[in-house]
């Protein structure tokens, strides 16, 4: 099928290049053999590390055991999926995953936009430069270290948060081990870490705004805020929509590593999400349940894909920009 598509497309593409019109597909492929040779290495990597696991995901429909391997194990159809949907964990896991990610989407969406608008408005170069340099920095800090920083800051005995609260006679509050605080801790630390870096892309969109627009608006007597509202905001809207779609698409997967790091037995009630559960079933339980865990993982991947397609369709319809 692939070759058919290519053959059919060939005349259209080579239309722009009359010299190539008479050259057949086979000849063109042979002429480019060195390019294919270069591509071969990454393609082998892709086959092994991206598509082989997709094939391996069929164990979700089998009772996998080490001796029989992926192919030899017995087919069981949707048994594992049914078991998961009926389990008492199902509702809680879906709720925790969605609430956490939607909350994170909210908390990481608007601060970069505000920061970019503010930076774009500021005129002192040294000030802009230092604000940018400092706010980018957390992007380069690892998840383990960010969680480490959180842990030392909120430590009930020595952390600066509880020292501070102590002045007012409040606390100490054991923030880490309390399920009520888990989501806020997780979400606002993400916001702290990504704000500066995410602003880059909005700044880029703002720099492409023609200065003449602003000049014309000034002549017409528009105030600063009016110009932000009518010139700057429309300029970043397409970028904002694309980023929002991308983030909705990753809503089922994102942030899993940090959740696992912040998680402990006392805050499981709100911190257990689909991916951490998969990890536990597969690697942290005494009897690894590979097939069951793979089924939950696959369930998550499929929902993620569906969400991405829906978000993209909506964006194309209402905001007139989309990923594909």
């Amino acid at each position, binding site marked *: 099928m*692939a070759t058919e598509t*290519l053959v059919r497309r*060939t005349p259209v593409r*080579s239309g722009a*290049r009359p010299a*190539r019109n008479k050259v057949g597909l086979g000849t*063109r492929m042979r002429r*480019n053999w060195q*390019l294919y040779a*270069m*591509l071969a*290495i*990454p*393609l082998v*990597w892709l086959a092994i*590390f*991206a598509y082989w*696991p*997709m094939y*391996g995901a069929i164990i979700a429909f089998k009772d996998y055991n080490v001796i029989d391997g992926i192919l030899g194990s017995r087919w069981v159809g949707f048994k594992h999926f049914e078991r998961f949907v009926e389990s008492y964990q199902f509702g809680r896991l879906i709720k925790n995953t969605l609430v956490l990610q939607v909350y994170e989407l909210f908390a990481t969406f608007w601060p970069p936009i*505000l920061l970019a608008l*503010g*930076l*774009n*408005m*500021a*005129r002192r*170069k040294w000030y802009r430069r230092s604000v940018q340099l*400092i*706010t980018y*920095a*957390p992007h*380069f*800090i*690892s998840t*383990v*270290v960010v969680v*480490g920083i959180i842990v*030392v800051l909120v430590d009930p005995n*020595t952390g600066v948060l509880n020292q501070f609260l*102590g002045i007012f006679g409040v606390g100490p509050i054991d923030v880490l081990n309390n399920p009520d605080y888990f989501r806020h801790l997780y979400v606002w630390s993400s916001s*702290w870490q990504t704000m500066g870096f995410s602003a*880059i*892309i909005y*700044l*880029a969109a703002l720099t492409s*705004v023609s*200065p003449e627009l*602003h000049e014309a608006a000034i002549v017409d007597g528009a105030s*600063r*805020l009016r110009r932000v509202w009518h010139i*700057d905001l429309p300029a970043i809207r397409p970028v904002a929509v694309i980023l929002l779609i991308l983030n909705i698409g990753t809503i089922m997967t994102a942030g899993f590593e940090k959740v696992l790091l912040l998680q402990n037995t006392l805050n499981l009630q709100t911190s257990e999400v689909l991916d951490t559960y998969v990890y536990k079933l*597969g690697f942290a339980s005494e009897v690894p349940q590979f097939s069951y*865990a*793979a089924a939950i*993982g*696959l369930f998550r*991947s499929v929902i*993620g*894909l569906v969400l991405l397609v829906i978000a993209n369709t909506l964006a194309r319809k209402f905001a007139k920009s989309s990923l594909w």
Partner: protein
Amino acid sequence: MAMATATPAPVQETRSDRIVMICNYTALGLFTLAVLYPLIYVLSASLSDPKNVVSGKVWLWPVGWSIESFKAVFDYDSIVSGFSNSVLYAVGGSVLATVLTLFAAYPLSRKGLPGKGLIMALFVFTMMFSGGLIPSYLVADQLGILNTRWAIILPAALAVWNMIITRTFFQSTIPEELVEAAKVDGCTDFGFFWRIVLPLSKPIIAVNLLFYAVAQWNSWFSALIYLTNEHLFPLQLVLRQILLQNQFDPSQVRDTAELIRMKELQEQLKYSLIVIATIPPLLVYPFVQKHFVKGAMVGSLKG
């Protein structure tokens, strides 16, 4: 550098505009302080006298100078081995990944390569859908790379997003006419890639090296599932044990006097560890920042 070009100012600012400006500068300053404070606090705590850290006398600047905890960090065996492992993974991993990325991005940037669309789709699809954690683990198992350094480097040897950015860079900097001209002169694709494309692509190569090195330096989860041999652990995994799980293993310290001192330092050790683990990526960053932001923009705007 993504500098915002200042929007033009009116000749005479109105009062309300001036108020908006002042609010803006203040808000930016507050944003910046909010980002900066935790970092400064951790740095100050790591440099303070351990007693002052535990009793909460440190608020902003170091109280009672001491670099004992930094010395102690380097006496802890698994931190030292973790550090050198991480350097190895970051250097080896980023070089391999950059080579793979260039090899994928260059052919896919060329116009009229038969099958280009299909191959591109194969790459992009993996961004949206994956087999999942368990099947990936089983693949590593079947390849026999579990518990080897390859398990850290190979699965991370290409990021499709970086490949797309690199491809966009090639499309916008290597004109098709240049390729045609070189072909007329008898240059092969390999020769063209080696002699023309690579020298023109230094910024994107720097961006890729940095992206992959930072990702490798910061990664810990693949080590958690693929490795059981502690001698292969990257720094981040060692950090997780000490910072988050409070696993402090006395047998890791060589002499006893050191051990007693270390017990006192244990709390402060966390702060100095955070500082040490954060410094390498932050050190590299300003040097490549210029290329880096430029590269990120090329990909994001035209991709």
